[in-house]
């Protein structure tokens, strides 16, 4: 009885030491998880996840403070990618979130714009050009569609427009199978 306990304790100690040594000696400087999470996020910096930008949200997920289904622009794809990366179960998206959100860009109605620069200050990716008292313009290719420029605008001259469908960025639709639809 006693000898068994001693043997097991000894074994446990030895293995523990080996493991501890290995953990230090063969430490892998891996891609920190926050970076990996961040790279899956759409980088719209929209703050709809309640965090001030994509990286803070990634940090929050890594610290298990946030759920993986809080990113509306990423939709289902991002949620599933996060679930896959973190090895957790996929979570349902909120009812107000679309599975495949439509890509949009901001557009400034130039006749209405008074050149207040408030939107320029709000844009997280510097995608709005303009100066005080001068008309502003959105650089379409840089706009992430985060809508952060809309609330500050005092004259409501910013609208969201769907990204123009061109043959270049057109996607074949997923085949419709009537037999698999619920009756």
């Amino acid at each position, binding site marked *: 009885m006693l000898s068994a306990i001693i043997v097991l304790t000894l074994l446990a100690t030895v293995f523990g030491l080996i493991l501890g040594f290995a953990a230090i000696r063969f430490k892998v400087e891996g891609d920190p998880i926050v970076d990996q999470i*961040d790279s899956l*996020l*759409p*980088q*719209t*910096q929209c703050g709809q996840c309640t965090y001030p*930008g*994509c990286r803070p949200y990634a940090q929050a997920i890594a610290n298990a403070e946030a759920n993986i289904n809080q990113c509306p622009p990423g939709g289902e*794809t991002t949620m599933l990618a996060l679930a896959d990366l973190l090895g957790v179960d996929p979570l349902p998206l909120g009812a107000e979130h679309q599975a495949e959100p439509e890509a949009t860009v901001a557009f400034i109605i130039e006749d209405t714009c008074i050149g207040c620069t408030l939107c320029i200050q709000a844009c*997280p*990716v*510097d*995608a709005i050009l303009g100066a005080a008292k001068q008309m502003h313009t959105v650089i379409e290719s*840089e706009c*992430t569609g985060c809508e952060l420029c809309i609330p500050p605008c005092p004259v409501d001259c910013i609208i969201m427009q769907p990204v123009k*469908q*061109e*043959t270049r*960025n*057109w*996607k*074949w*639709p*997923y*085949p*419709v*199978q*009537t*037999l698999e639809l619920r009756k």
Partner: protein
Amino acid sequence: MIRQLFRYKGGVKLSDHKQESSSQPIQKVTLPKRLILPLQQHIGAPASAIVSVGERVLKGQMIAKSDGHISAPVHASTSGRVVEITDFAIPHPSGLKAPCIVIESDGNDAWCDHRKPVDDCHHYTPEQIREHIRHAGVVGLGGAGFPSFLKLTVGSERVVETLILNGAECEPFISCDDRLMRERAEEIIKGLMVMQHALVAKACVIGVEENKPEAAAALRSAISALAVEVEVVEVPTLYPTGGEKQLIKILTNKEIPPKTLPIEKRVVVHNVGTAAAVYRAICLGEPLISRVITIAGAVKKPGNYEIPFGISAAQLLEQVGIEEESVERIIHGGPMMGFALNTLDVPLIKTSNCLLVTDPNTVPLRNKQLALACIRCGSCADVCPINLLPQQLYWHSRAKDFDKAQDYNLFDCIECGCCDYVCPSQIPLVQYFRFAKTSIWQAEQDKKQAELAKERHEFRQFRIEREKAEKKARHKAKAAKVAAKNVGADDKKKAIEEAMARVKAKKQQQEANVSASKTEPGDNT
């Protein structure tokens, strides 16, 4: 010597339905009043317009120049006036609109005077020939529309052993190449000779499917009449032998790996129609402004028609005669790889080789929305000419597991449709593969976009931080000054006086210096 032929795995035997359209000679069409010329009629970057609205143009005049290396110019198909440059529906599976130049014909069909026919291409260097072909807007007329001059370019270290002309035309219903070979064999051979000169190719072979004996005979007699060395080879009738890589395999036993051009294996393939276009570009000095198109299926006068680019499908079908009520689908291209049009108001362009009008009697279509489950029977794998496993690709594409689909070489799929054709469950396999491919491209695009946004966001944060820091520094400096002021007003007064005195002294000194000598720097002490 009879050339040894090889076989690629898979393929399907299709009933060719070519008779109805191939029995008639190529016919001309009446020139329509209005021609719509898309800026992109080829693979690569769209051309950019060089005419403006209201401008008069002549037939053969360049109206849009190529933009970038992989691009092709567009020429006016007739003389007239540019009335609009705007977005119109173009022949594309998406049915989307794209920029087009609209020409209103003046009815004169007057040629521009830029034509410079070349009687013997051997007087020119391959580079000059290529530039000429590029300028003439010649693209592959087999269906893909790759700018031809690119496929006539050899790297300095490369040698072209075999130049193949593709006259296989394996899709059912299409017979435009067949008629072209029968009627304009000499043009094709002359064009081939120009291509051979441009490529310095050692041997020329024309592959023609066995179901077109008249075409092969016409080519042979043209070859003997011109006394040139070209081999015409009859290849077995099997779909998709007209695929570039499949034809190379059959004729040379070389397999071109995915994402590589045949030239890396010392082979170049051009369509027979392209050869005829090259002939016209070089020997007649005519740019590519028309082509032969097959109209087949449920039309009153099926056959082959020589059309000016920009004529709309509606205008052409009106001349050919269709019964609108019974029409189910209008397919641009063949029934295996073509796409259905959602409107007839699309212009026909350089890549339009066929319009197939279907009604339930002439072309029985399938209802692909009633697909049953995949039972993994493997019929698709048996017929896949690329030796893929479509059943696995389907499984993963359907589940949107694109990484797995790429493990099974999704991007090697040529979308020939053989798998779809034989699937007993009638699953729209090709559409799943297209969906997967375009989704992956889009995801890559989104990823790039996200990266860019991230970079910009990070830079913005850095900028804000920096501004904050600068502000802080300024505040600090100000605070220090205020603090200094508080320490003693006398000190400050004194300091100001001292400073003023210094400035005064300095000024005097400077004035003195300037008057004394302009070259000597001022002494500050």
